[in-house]
């Protein structure tokens, strides 16, 4: 499935939900990147306490209130976005980087290599999502990097499968047969001819997956296997606020939860949009 970038973009721009989502995500990303410039409480965003304004309810000074160490929740959310967003993206990118070449090799070479690699992916896919990630994250120790690694380890088989399926359909094409016929080495064929032709659906799937990856990462953080203090991601913020949630300090968990919810939704809408726009057969559905 080779897709023209121009027409894909054109279709994407007609999808209102996707456009709004992209704008939202861009805003969140900008808020994350330029957080130090955008909030007067940058130091608090990075963890410094301000015990004087402990547990301030949402108001003009602190629109989303403050936490138990008096930190402004808007600043915490903006700095938290750095981690939550990057976790989602890194998981997907890492999974792609592991999965794509393996799937490509399996699909291209076929035979026992294919069989072996696919059985390995079967094993990974046999776990209910999150369960294996929990076990691995627990084994590696709680940290931001380990959480990303743990989820990526459970995620790559999806990309391996996708890459393999795409490779199988590309493999028989004339130009590849031709390249093989004139003795181009396998490695070169895979990299020059197969890879570019299978990337589109993989990238599309990746866009769809980021939202889910953010959710899973937030889940790990929620049970304490993710970002460590003094930093926080959105999952950690929900977890920290939970103790006080039903005791009148509702704002602590509400806003980070909303942030995850809306971001995941935006990625889903954007991913759907990209998928439909990139697949001519689906465009009619618009």
């Amino acid at each position, binding site marked *: 499935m080779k897709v023209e970038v121009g027409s894909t973009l054109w*279709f994407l721009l*007609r999808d209102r939900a996707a456009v709004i989502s992209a704008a939202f995500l861009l805003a969140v990303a900008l808020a994350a990147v330029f957080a130090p410039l955008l909030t007067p409480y940058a130091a608090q965003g990075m963890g410094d306490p301000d015990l004087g304004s402990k547990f301030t309810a949402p108001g003009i000074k602190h629109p989303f209130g403050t936490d138990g160490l008096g930190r402004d929740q808007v600043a915490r959310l903006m700095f938290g976005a750095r981690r939550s967003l990057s976790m989602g993206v890194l998981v997907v990118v890492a999974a792609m980087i592991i999965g794509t070449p393996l799937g490509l090799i399996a699909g291209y070479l076929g035979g026992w290599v294919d069989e072996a690699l696919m059985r390995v992916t079967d094993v990974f896919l046999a776990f209910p999502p999150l369960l294996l990630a929990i076990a691995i994250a627990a084994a590696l120790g709680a940290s931001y990097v380990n959480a990303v690694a743990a989820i990526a380890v459970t995620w790559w088989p999806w990309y391996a499968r996708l890459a393999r399926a795409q490779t199988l359909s590309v493999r028989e094409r004339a130009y590849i047969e031709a390249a093989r016929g004139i003795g181009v080495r396998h490695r070169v064929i895979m990299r020059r001819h197969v890879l570019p032709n299978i990337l589109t659906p993989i990238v599309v799937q990746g866009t769809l997956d980021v939202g889910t990856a953010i959710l899973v990462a937030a889940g790990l953080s929620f049970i304490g296997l993710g970002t460590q203090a003094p930093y926080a991601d959105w999952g950690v913020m929900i977890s920290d606020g939970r103790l006080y949630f039903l005791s009148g300090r509702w704002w602590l968990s509400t806003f980070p939860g909303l942030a995850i919810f809306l971001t995941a939704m935006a990625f889903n809408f954007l991913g759907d949009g990209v998928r439909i726009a990139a697949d001519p057969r689906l*465009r*009619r559905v*618009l």
Partner: protein
Amino acid sequence: MALLSIENLTVEFNTPFGAVYAIRGIDFTLRKGEILGLVGETGCGKSVTGRSIIGLLDDNARITAGRILFEDVDLLRLSDAAMHEVRGNRIAMIFQDPATALNPLFTIGAQIMDVLRAHRPAKRGDLKTDAMSLFADVGLPDPAQMMHVYPHQLSGGQQQRAMIALSLAAEPDVIIADEPTTALDVTIQAQILDLLRVLQRERSISVILITHDLGIVAETCQQVVVLYAGRVAEKGAVEAIFAAPQHPYTRGLLAALPRPGSRGSDLQVIAGAVPSGLERIAGCAFAPRCEYVMEICRGQQPAFSDIKQAHQSACHLHETFADA
């Protein structure tokens, strides 16, 4: 005695690229008891015409002008409920690939009984008897066993027979057969066409046979309508048109026709491509590909002219050919 008249039927499709003109105003008439061939290349609008008649256009299609008169009632003005009464009961349809037109998860018997039940209340036993007699009518072996058979257990020809049985279930007046034999072998093809002819004769059903194969038209039809780019290029009695085709397009088609009796080949043998449905066409749609093209052809749409009573062609040159 016109059973069904199509008048200035115009259909557009909404696409993200803009409106696609599928049918640009066509007229023809189907008389009772005759088989009318609707011929043209892929994309000329012949299937859309069939779907328009039975009211099953895709959601993004819009009929922007015209009338479809069935026994002097405009089908386009009927309510959904009324149109629902027409479908199956008065007008039925047969599809190109019986393998996809039959539901794979239900037995043939169940499917035909669904149709029977939809059109008349009856006891289950009666329905079953009727279903089996329909199977016999269309020449399916062992009708009793057919009741319990799934589509995939039948051969292509048998599937199409079953499909025909389904379309006959409510005793319609008109059957629209959309390329009913394209997916079948040549020998089976002939058998199915025979069956259609028999049904037409014995039940005096009118048939609109949609095909791209002029060979089939020659063997099966009494009337023919040649479509090009959503317009009628030429229409009339089969003998007249095959004897003296008036439109350069029809001539091209006939010239490409292999010996009668062998399987028809694809019709795209005339140089050039069919114009895109996105374009508005000012003059003759065929002009870009026409070897006889004249100045007038690009600017003005040719009107129909009667060559004889039963033979009309839309070409600025028609008199030239008539003389020739």
